[in-house]
């Protein structure tokens, strides 16, 4: 059995990639569903690959990943919007950085870029600060819903015979003759002949369990606002000229509607500290207002959130076999979401087959496509009409803001969603203006239709995140 630890975007795509081959694949995740670690809270951008230092692992994998996303999104049935990205210059000296991007882009094999002058930029992005002098525009950049990438990869993994176990926190690794014995917090044990560590923020700690050393991971917090204004703020991702640590605080359309502003970059002490702070939020406001002066932080925010970057001193991915024989996929910092499909190929084709010399045989019946659609988007009303004729639940709306129907909620439950957030993340319900004020009740009604589910069992996301203390009257 090949065990993959961690169902973030990296682990999920590696597991799904391995399910192409004649191997038993099991994905272990401590949360209740996929994509709830670093993969949950980030900018969701599929980067063009023009700003990673040439020669780094990051540069080659993110470029390849960007290209792979087209086929992957069709196969796995998630949406991608290649809206393009601008890196905007406000001062003369900013063009030095833009010239550097041109050099990097050429070396990294990015062809889809253009230098945009002031006038053109005004036409492309009318809401952008009028002082902008020009930009580096890359049309390959896009946005996705990041956890949906992980979730849809897991769906496809299961379709191809792979398994995923949630609520399994790895606490100890023992080397045995036939490979490894894995110990989980709930007392269970599993044997595996190969282990792939995709533990995100915790990958360094998992490496330690096997006695291996990988670059230490320290958390760098990024805070965000999600806004839902009525008018268009930007058509593409808008980056400022970055500082030395990050790509800077950006404004981007989000795939499910609205705009993200953020992130900040602040080193924090705890890998669990995903709190928002007034300091961080006010920094986002100031920086975003500089890019898009009409952004309205009084009226339009629907929520704030924060993510933690798994950062290392080296600022590069670390993907290698440790002394123990375990494969560590560690230091997957930005642009890890972009690179993930390429990381999956790199691990299976290069690390496992070439470096470890393990021969993998392709299964003839591998099906790369997900045909269960959870979220249905219809090109025309006629299409929608004929779908509802077959599935009346698809004509019954549960979330009015994001237009999610009962059909999709039920599908999500069938797909294994167990908590309220599972359903929300899978379907997009409650990510609109009212943030679940309306649909949470309806979702719970649907969950309770299964008579085995008791109100006290309903949780928001993790264990102990209960919603109801009891029924009011028995």
């Amino acid at each position, binding site marked *: 059995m090949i065990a993959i630890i961690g169902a973030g975007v990296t682990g999920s795509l590696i597991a799904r990639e391995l399910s192409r081959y004649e191997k038993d694949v099991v994905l272990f995740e401590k949360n209740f569903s996929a994509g709830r670690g670093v993969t949950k809270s980030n900018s969701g951008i599929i980067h063009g690959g023009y700003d990673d230092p040439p020669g780094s692992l990051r540069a080659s994998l993110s470029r390849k990943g960007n290209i792979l996303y087209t086929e992957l999104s069709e196969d796995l049935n998630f949406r991608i919007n290649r809206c393009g990205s601008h890196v905007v210059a406000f001062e003369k000296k900013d063009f030095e950085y833009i010239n550097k991007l041109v050099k990097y882009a050429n070396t990294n094999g990015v062809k889809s870029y253009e230098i945009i002058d002031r006038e053109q930029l005004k036409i492309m992005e009318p809401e952008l600060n009028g002082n902008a002098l020009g930009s580096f525009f890359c049309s390959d950049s896009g946005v996705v819903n990041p956890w949906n990438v992980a979730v849809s990869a897991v769906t496809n993994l299961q379709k191809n015979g792979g398994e995923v176990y949630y609520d399994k926190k790895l606490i100890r690794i023992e080397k045995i003759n036939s490979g490894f014995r894995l110990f989980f917090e709930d007392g269970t044990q599993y044997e595996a002949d190969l282990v792939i560590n995709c533990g995100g923020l915790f990958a360094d700690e998992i490496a330690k369990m096997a006695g291996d050393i990988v670059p230490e991971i320290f958390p760098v917090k990024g805070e965000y*606002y999600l806004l839902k204004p*009525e008018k268009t703020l930007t058509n593409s991702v808008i980056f400022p000229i970055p500082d030395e640590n990050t790509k800077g605080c950006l404004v981007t359309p989000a795939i499910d509607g609205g705009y993200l502003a953020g992130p900040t970059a602040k080193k924090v002490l705890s890998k669990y500290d*995903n*709190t*928002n*702070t*007034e300091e961080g*939020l006010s920094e986002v406001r100031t920086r975003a207002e500089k890019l898009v002066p009409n952004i309205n*932080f009084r009226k339009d*925010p*629907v*929520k*704030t*959130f924060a993510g933690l970057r798994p950062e290392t001193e080296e600022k590069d991915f670390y993907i290698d076999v440790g002394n123990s024989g375990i494969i560590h996929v560690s230091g997957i910092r930005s642009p890890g979401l972009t690179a993930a499909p390429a990381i999956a190929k790199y691990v299976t084709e290069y690390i496992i087959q070439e470096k470890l010399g393990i021969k993998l045989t392709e299964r003839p019946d591998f099906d790369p496509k997900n045909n269960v659609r959870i979220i249905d988007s219809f090109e025309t*009303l*006629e299409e*929608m*009409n*004929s779908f*509802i*004729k077959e599935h*009346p*639940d698809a*004509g*019954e*709306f549960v979330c*009015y*803001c994001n237009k999610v129907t009962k059909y999709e909620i039920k599908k999500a439950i069938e797909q294994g969603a167990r908590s309220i957030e599972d359903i929300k993340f899978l379907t997009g319900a409650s990510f609109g*203006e*009212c*943030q*679940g*004020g*309306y649909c*949470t*009740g309806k979702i*719970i*009604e649907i969950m309770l239709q299964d008579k085995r589910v008791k*109100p006290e069992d309903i*949780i*928001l*996301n*993790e*264990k*102990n*995140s*209960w*919603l*109801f*203390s*009891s*029924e*009011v*009257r028995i």
Partner: protein
Amino acid sequence: MSSNVVVIGGGAAGLAAALKASEEKCDVTLIERDSDVGGVLNQCIHNGFGLDYFKKNLTGPEFKEKLKEKVLSKSNIKIKSGAFVHSVEKDKNIVFIDRNGVNNLKCDSLVITTGAKERPFTSLGISGKRLSGIYSAGLAQKFINMMNLRPGNSALIVGSGDIGLIMARRLTLEGVKVEGVIEIMPYPGGLQRNIKLCLEDFSIPLYLSRAVKYVDGDRRVNKIITTKVDDKFNHIGGDDITFNVDTLVSSVGLVPNVKPFEFLEHSAGFSTTNKNRTSENWIFSAGNSTVVFDLVDYVAQEGEKAGYMAALQAKNDLSPAGKIKLLPGKNIGILYPSYIEKDYESKIYLRARQPMEKGVLLIPELGIEKEFEDIKPSEMIKIKVPAFDKNTDRIEVNLNELK
């Protein structure tokens, strides 16, 4: 399918509109997205509804039943429930979706009475963890009153609007310990009678000029740290109060539902005239989709008027007159309607920006100079204005404090 008048949204405003239009001999179709009509009335099981409209003190569901009964008795009203309006096209075609599929409905005139939704707590940008146990008041109300679910053991209410106050009492009655209500403004947001009936009668403390600083817990809320604020809402240190509760119920305001009709002129809600007309001649609106009203009686009266006007419009009996903009001047928070059509009387509703012991409302162009005592932002002021036809394009409404 076609209908003379279509009403979108079957709350108090929509039911009243449908009724009135049907009395004007129009065929009416009422479209409601929920499985039943009634809107927010369904979940308000307390008394205090209908004192003016039905001259009776009713609960929300009773108020609804009385209206619904009348609506059901009309053979020219069709109710489509479980039907969500997808779009309204300028050629007077309405596209709605229900379990039967995608439907098209042609009309002569349209009334939009889509009500309001709660502002989410998450939009406030407050520090803290993402925890279970944070509910908007309307959702908590729905859990308890309609789904028989108790959302926690102990609670702090954030925001003293009417829904927050009503919920403080409801939660207490259902065995949830309510530790207090905090309000960021220096005065309460809800009706005075609710402060008395829901807080004072149950000894629930109300803290003014206080805001949430941090929400803490371990997967579920267990602690809410609050702080005093100054008049610009800046946190003042040194006077923090920590509430050890497992539930935060937020009641931080309602926002009119204008989706998917944003093509109509609107600020928070739709901008309408005293004839309830929106920026499209054939579309009317009333109730909480225009401004948030505190009494259902006003909502039902405005709904009736909108239904009546829509019926006249459908019969081509209503020609648009010149519009005069009503401008909120000194001390005016909310002002309704946005415009006055000449030659027709109007009822003007407004809210003061801050409490005053005594004030005078001045609209010289309309000959209005009227004194009010004990003015509260939470209580709407309503005045009748006769028809007039002076030549002007704007009128300012001012409320001057009298010392």
